[in-house]
């Protein structure tokens, strides 16, 4: 076998192996998307009821709470960025990071100091490489976040928002995550979690045009709100984590699908080149034989004379 043909054969073998791997990863990601979507759906009743309750307290009483009132002069804002632990997901992480950077820039232009919190190794690596300060980071659960993980993430944020701004607290809490729109579309979005914009929450819940009844609060409206808002933040973070996970798997699936397709195309091109090389080799061999035979014939014809 010719040297060139051997090189082509070797490359085809290696690309075929790669294709098998990316195909497997694509299928794993596809099954995980479904699982993650199911988890998002399972967490919806809790989030819906909690939002309803928050709306009820917010609209049904005139309670003033630090988590619902805007600071007159916000000077510090916390940004929570949700990325994944592992890459191989196309532009998933870079989109989220880009959204976070745009948000940070906007907040800084408004004269606010930004404190960054990060979930996921990818985002953390990005910030560490640029030597930017990260207040706190959480890794190791982005593929399948549990509610306990969301609590862990929420705890320092709730503490920071409860503190006075002068003692290292923050006035605002923003979150950047990747919203799972559909299998094909995931968009990185940012939203302000706290202080709560009650009008927005009301809009979300009362699409049916229902009127919320006047609730009796047990023990009191303040206490209920005190207990309710941290849970609300946790549930929002949990929902964002789940959506991020679903988006990440969908992005991985798409990236791996195009990798598989590209590998297939590469195999096609390489086999054509290998065929051409083989054919060229045969042609050369034939012409060598023919040339050799006619040279031999010429030589014997010459000696006869």
């Amino acid at each position, binding site marked *: 076998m010719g040297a060139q043909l051997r090189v082509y054969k070797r490359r085809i073998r290696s690309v075929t192996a790669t294709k098998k791997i990316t195909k497997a990863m694509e299928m794993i990601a596809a099954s995980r998307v479904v699982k993650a979507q199911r988890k998002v759906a399972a967490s919806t009743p809790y989030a819906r009821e909690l939002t309803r309750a928050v709306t009820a307290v917010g609209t049904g009483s005139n309670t003033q709470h630090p988590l619902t009132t805007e600071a007159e002069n916000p000077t510090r804002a916390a940004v929570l960025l949700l990325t994944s632990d592992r890459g191989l997901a196309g532009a998933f992480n870079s989109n989220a990071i880009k959204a976070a950077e745009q948000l940070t820039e906007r907040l800084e232009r408004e004269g606010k100091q930004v404190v960054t919190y990060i979930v996921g190794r990818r985002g953390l690596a990005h910030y560490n490489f640029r030597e930017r300060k990260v207040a706190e980071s959480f890794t190791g659960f982005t593929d399948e976040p549990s509610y306990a993980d969301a609590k862990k993430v929420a705890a320092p944020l709730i503490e920071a928002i409860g503190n006075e701004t002068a003692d290292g607290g923050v006035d605002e809490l923003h979150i950047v995550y990747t919203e799972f729109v559909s299998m094909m579309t995931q968009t990185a979005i940012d939203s302000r979690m706290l202080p709560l914009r009650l009008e927005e929450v009301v809009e979300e819940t009362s699409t049916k045009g229902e009127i919320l009844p006047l609730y009796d609060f*047990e023990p009191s409206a303040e206490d209920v709100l005190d207990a309710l808002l941290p849970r609300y933040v946790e549930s929002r973070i949990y929902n964002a984590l789940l959506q991020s996970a679903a988006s990440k798997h969908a992005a991985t699936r798409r990236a791996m699908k195009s990798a598989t397709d590209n590998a297939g195309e590469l195999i096609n091109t390489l086999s054509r080149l290998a065929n051409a090389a083989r054919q060229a080799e045969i042609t050369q061999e034939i012409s060598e034989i023919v040339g050799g035979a006619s040279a031999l014939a010429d030589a014997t014809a010459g000696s006869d004379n």
Partner: protein
Amino acid sequence: MAAELHVALVAADREVWSGEATLVVARTTSGDIGVMPGHQPLLGVLESGPVTIRTPEGGTVVAAVHGGFISFADNKLSLLAEIAELSDEIDVQHAEQELARAKAEDDTEAQRRADVRLRAATAGR
């Protein structure tokens, strides 16, 4: 007045139980509260403890609820909890082990959780 109210017991990651009931007893921070159909709209903070739901067929459903809220309006009652388990889902032996371990390690949080589980499991029998 309707004779039944609709109950949804929801944990952070799943819907634990939902159905009709004639009476729901839960423990709020200011004491036990019983909700029957037609109760006035209510929103309260729950303590960790067992929640008892009486169904129209005369049966009872007991669940261990670890913190959360109770909200009632329009004959719909929602019980929201970070963690909620039905009494027949609770592994008594496991909970007892947990309780012993928590006592040994002086982990009040885990001890409380295990205690609530055991109380709900025994009440459900």
